[in-house]
């Protein structure tokens, strides 16, 4: 076996040596034979002739020897490749076009795939990640995913037969001020976790240790990110201390960023005094739950068990359980569920683009192949088998495709630099994908011309130089296919674009112009009121500042955790077992003015309202619970849920604000008058970002321990909140535009090719009295028939595929009639234009020339 391989390798790589040796050997044989013949008395001329005769066909022997080496296949491929390169160099412009089209579509696919691979396909960096489960609560209708309660945790933790191990973490960040003496404070997201969370995930610390089963409450694990940024990658960090909101913690370990969980955490603490009632209060839903399935237990069995347990719990506590449900998912699905439809959409759009490019190139190659029929016929007549010719053509296509793949790789790399998740890399799996799709496209678009060449009968081709119509049907089919695919891509992009436009027209309920926002973390020792007044005084004295306000959460990017239940006794909408929740906003009196939130009724807060049981509610809440009435002056219960609830008086109603993004539904909002500074709002008539440095400096002058972060204008926030939408709209739209261009080139190519093929026919028609305009119509009618067939196909395909858009559109039906009518109409008009030039060419055929043709 090894001998065989070595022999073949030598024969292939030292081809010249082996050839020379063979020649020498054969010459030696003939000379020996001739010498013997001479010895037996033959004249020397005859001696050599006889030797040749006895030997047999020497060329045939040579060929058989080459075959015997077992490298024939490789040598043919090499020869094919050399020939392919020669053909490519002979048609530089054509080849460059093909490579460019391929590079764009392969590049798009590779870039999208590398993101898909990174996010969806690559297993999580944990031990045996497929056995990990995430469980959340649901509370209809607002919350599809909310933390679990301590009651649930306790009963789930004991299901040892379905769970090998369970762990909890605080599902929303505990934000605080982290500080080491002598350095500026930094706002960080901390998380409380059960000590077994990292062991359950199989996550090993970068340095130091994880939490012990029973851990000191003052121990802390840092994220690699925080360790590098704030602690300057200090190698001696283990055992050092820092303060978090004034409490002293000791670093016991650093977690590498690869196994960061949850992804927002900067530091992890074990259960301790900073944790409030998350683990004890049965109505809090603030815990994330992760479990490792017991061996042999499937996700469904675990889910069934949890549902049974939950039902039992619900029966025990009917007053707190109505409306609640659970959702169980594999950890990976849970973490990526939100982006999955977007990524799959992008992948789908990119593959459509690739298919269209393939169809286009195939039809280009077909028309070139018909120009090369004579060349092929000559090769066939010289003895090349039709399979051999077919293989030659496929090799040419493959070389083009691989060139396209290499350029596409560069495009993909460039594209990934622009894409938001920059962590996607050209990993081995991605490179394999790239190579596979390059090969697949090469074979796909090389097949059509190859099949045509294999079918061609050399005799008929040589005899009649005009082959009218041959290859026409396959080219037409390709154009129809291409048009159909393009239409579905363009319709999809059209619907997404329309949805994006709708989204941009949505009134967010406030004005972002001139608004600067800053996130601020105040050490707990500071009193909010004096701090607020100090900030107000200093900031308002800055040039350009018009208004200053504070709030606990910003619109568009608010956290759903800032919510609380309320009760409107007497309202028919209230189910005492399932109280509605409202979004809780604290606001200083100037907030509504700074954000330009309109007052619908009553008044906004004044300084006197601070710490009084008064609230401002939004329009949706007013209309929902006090329909047809002005609720100003009325009271409702805002908690606490003990024997002595607080009744709050409504002093005003303000316009709705989009709390969770432009595409979010209207929430029920309750504003409380409060000077708590979570976010600062600075309104100016000028460019808000130009003010940022000055504002920050002023704040640090007031109190160096204020941790300022997320300094952004409200316009930036609005832009970022629509970013995902912009990508889901922008990329498919780009792909669709490229596809459209390719399809136009395709139909133009087919029409001009068919006109060129039919020149003689047109000449005859004209000689027989056809009008020029009739010929033009003939061509146009043909083109339109192709376009309409493609468009019909594409409309059906789009209707079949539209459900994939369901989760991605806003305010538009996925079957939007305007898009479904206008896009095909537009494409038809443009297709007509593309056919116009060939049609005009047809009408200008000169019969006296075309009939003498050939």
């Amino acid at each position, binding site marked *: 076996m090894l*001998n*065989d391989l070595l*022999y*073949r390798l030598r024969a292939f790589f030292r081809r010249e040596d082996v050839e020379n*040796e*063979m020649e*020498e*050997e*054969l010459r*030696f*044989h003939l000379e*020996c*034979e001739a010498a013997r013949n001479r010895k037996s008395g033959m004249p020397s001329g005859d001696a050599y002739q006889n030797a040749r005769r*006895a*030997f*047999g*066909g*020497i060329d*045939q*022997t040579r060929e*058989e*020897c080459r*075959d*015997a*080496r*077992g490298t024939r296949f490789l040598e043919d491929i090499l020869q094919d490749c050399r020939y392919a390169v020669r053909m490519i160099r002979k048609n530089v412009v054509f080849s460059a076009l093909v490579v460019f089209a391929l590079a764009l579509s392969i590049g798009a696919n590779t870039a999208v795939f590398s993101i898909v691979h990174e996010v969806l396909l690559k297993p999580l960096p944990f031990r045996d990640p497929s056995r990990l489960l995430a469980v959340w609560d649901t509370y209809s209708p607002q919350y599809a995913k909310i933390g679990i309660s301590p009651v649930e945790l306790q009963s789930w933790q004991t299901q040892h037969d379905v769970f090998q191990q369970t762990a909890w973490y605080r599902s929303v960040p505990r934000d605080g001020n982290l500080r080491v003496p002598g350095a500026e404070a930094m706002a960080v997201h901390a998380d409380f976790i059960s000590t077994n969370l990292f062991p359950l995930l199989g996550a090993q610390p970068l340095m130091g240790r994880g939490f012990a089963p029973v851990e000191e409450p003052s121990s802390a694990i840092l994220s690699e990110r925080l360790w590098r940024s704030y602690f300057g990658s200090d190698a001696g960090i283990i055992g050092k201390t820092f303060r978090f909101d004034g409490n002293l913690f000791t670093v016991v370990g650093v977690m590498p960023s690869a196994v960061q969980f949850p992804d927002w955490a900067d530091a992890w603490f074990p259960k301790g005094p900073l944790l409030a009632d998350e683990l004890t209060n049965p109505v809090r839903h603030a815990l994330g739950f992760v479990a490792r399935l017991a061996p042999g237990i499937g996700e469904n069995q675990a889910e069934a068990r949890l549902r049974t347990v939950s039902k039992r719990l619900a029966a025990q506590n009917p007053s707190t359980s109505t409306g609640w449900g659970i959702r169980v998912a594999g950890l990976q699905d849970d973490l990526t569920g939100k982006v999955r439809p977007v990524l799959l959409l992008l992948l789908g759009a990119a593959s459509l683009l690739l298919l269209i490019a393939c169809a286009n190139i195939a039809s280009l190659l077909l028309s070139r192949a018909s120009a090369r029929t004579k060349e092929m016929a000559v090769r066939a007549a010289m003895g090349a088998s039709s399979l051999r010719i077919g293989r030659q053509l496929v090799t040419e296509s493959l070389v083009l495709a691989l060139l396209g793949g290499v350029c596409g790789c560069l495009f993909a790399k460039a594209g990934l630099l622009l894409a938001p998740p920059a962590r996607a890399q050209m990993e081995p799996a991605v490179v394999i994908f790239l190579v596979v799709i390059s090969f697949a496209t090469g074979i796909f678009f090389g097949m059509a011309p190859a099949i045509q060449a294999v079918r061609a009968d050399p005799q008929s081709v040589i005899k009649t130089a005009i082959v009218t119509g041959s290859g026409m049907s396959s080219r037409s089919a390709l154009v129809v296919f291409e048009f159909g695919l393009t239409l579905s891509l363009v319709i999809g992009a059209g619907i997404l674009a329309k949805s994006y436009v709708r989204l941009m027209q949505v009134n967010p309920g406030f004005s972002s112009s001139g608004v600067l926002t800053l996130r601020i973390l105040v050490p707990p020792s500071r009193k909010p009121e004096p701090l607020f007044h100090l900030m107000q005084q200093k900031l308002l004295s800055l040039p350009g500042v018009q208004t200053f306000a504070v709030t606990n959460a910003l619109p568009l990017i608010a956290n759903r955790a800032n919510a609380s239940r309320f009760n409107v006794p007497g309202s028919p909408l209230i189910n005492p077992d399932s109280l509605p929740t409202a979004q809780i906003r604290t606001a200083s009196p100037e907030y509504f003015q700074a954000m330009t939130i309109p007052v619908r009724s009553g008044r906004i807060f004044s300084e006197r309202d601070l710490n009084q049981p008064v609230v401002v509610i939004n329009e949706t809440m007013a209309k929902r619970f006090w329909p047809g009435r002005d609720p100003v002056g009325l009271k409702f219960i805002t908690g606490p849920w003990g024997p002595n609830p607080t009744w709050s008086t409504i002093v005003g109603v303000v316009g709705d604000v989009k709390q969770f993004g432009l595409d979010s539904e209207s929430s029920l909002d309750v504003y409380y008058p409060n000077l708590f500074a979570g976010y600062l709002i600075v309104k100016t008539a000028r460019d808000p970002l130009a003010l940022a440095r000055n504002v920050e400096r002023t704040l640090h002058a007031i109190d160096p321990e204020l941790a300022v972060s997320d300094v952004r204008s409200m316009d930036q926030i609005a832009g970022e909140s629509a970013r995902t939408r912009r990508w889901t709209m922008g990329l498919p739209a780009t792909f669709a535009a490229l596809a459209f261009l390719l399809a136009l080139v395709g139909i133009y190519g087919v029409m001009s090719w068919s006109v060129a093929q039919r020149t003689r026919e047109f000449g005859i028609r004209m000689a027989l009295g056809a009008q020029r305009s009739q010929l033009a119509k003939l061509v146009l009618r043909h083109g339109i028939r192709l376009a309409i067939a493609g468009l019909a196909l594409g409309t059906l395909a789009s209707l079949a595929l539209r459900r994939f858009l369901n989760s991605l559109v806003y305010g538009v039906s996925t079957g939007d009639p305007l898009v479904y009518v206008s896009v095909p109409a537009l494409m038809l008009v443009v297709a007509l234009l593309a056919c116009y030039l060939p049609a005009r060419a047809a009408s200008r055929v000169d019969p006296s020339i075309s009939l003498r043709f050939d």
Partner: protein
Amino acid sequence: MADRLDLPQGTLDLLILKALATEALHGWGISERLQQISRDAFQVQQGSLYPALHRLERRGWVKARWRTTENNRRAKYYELTRQGQRQLEKEMDAWRKLTAAMACVLDTG
């Protein structure tokens, strides 16, 4: 000799191995040896030796080495490898069995 036999398919390899069983030979030498030992009974096109030799070399049954002849010419000599030796024995054995069986069938009748 009027009725020389065409070689049955696959027997050329066996004949070459047999010719090389005693000593290393070059291509022409093998063709001479074959003529000799078969007493000109077979019709072997001399050229067809070489593809067969190269195939045997690839399989590792013979080994080729360039040496000088008595006349001081460079020539490619083939010799049997150990593997080739085994192959020869195997094929001879099979051939004998086949001919014996054939003879048996043809004689009883």
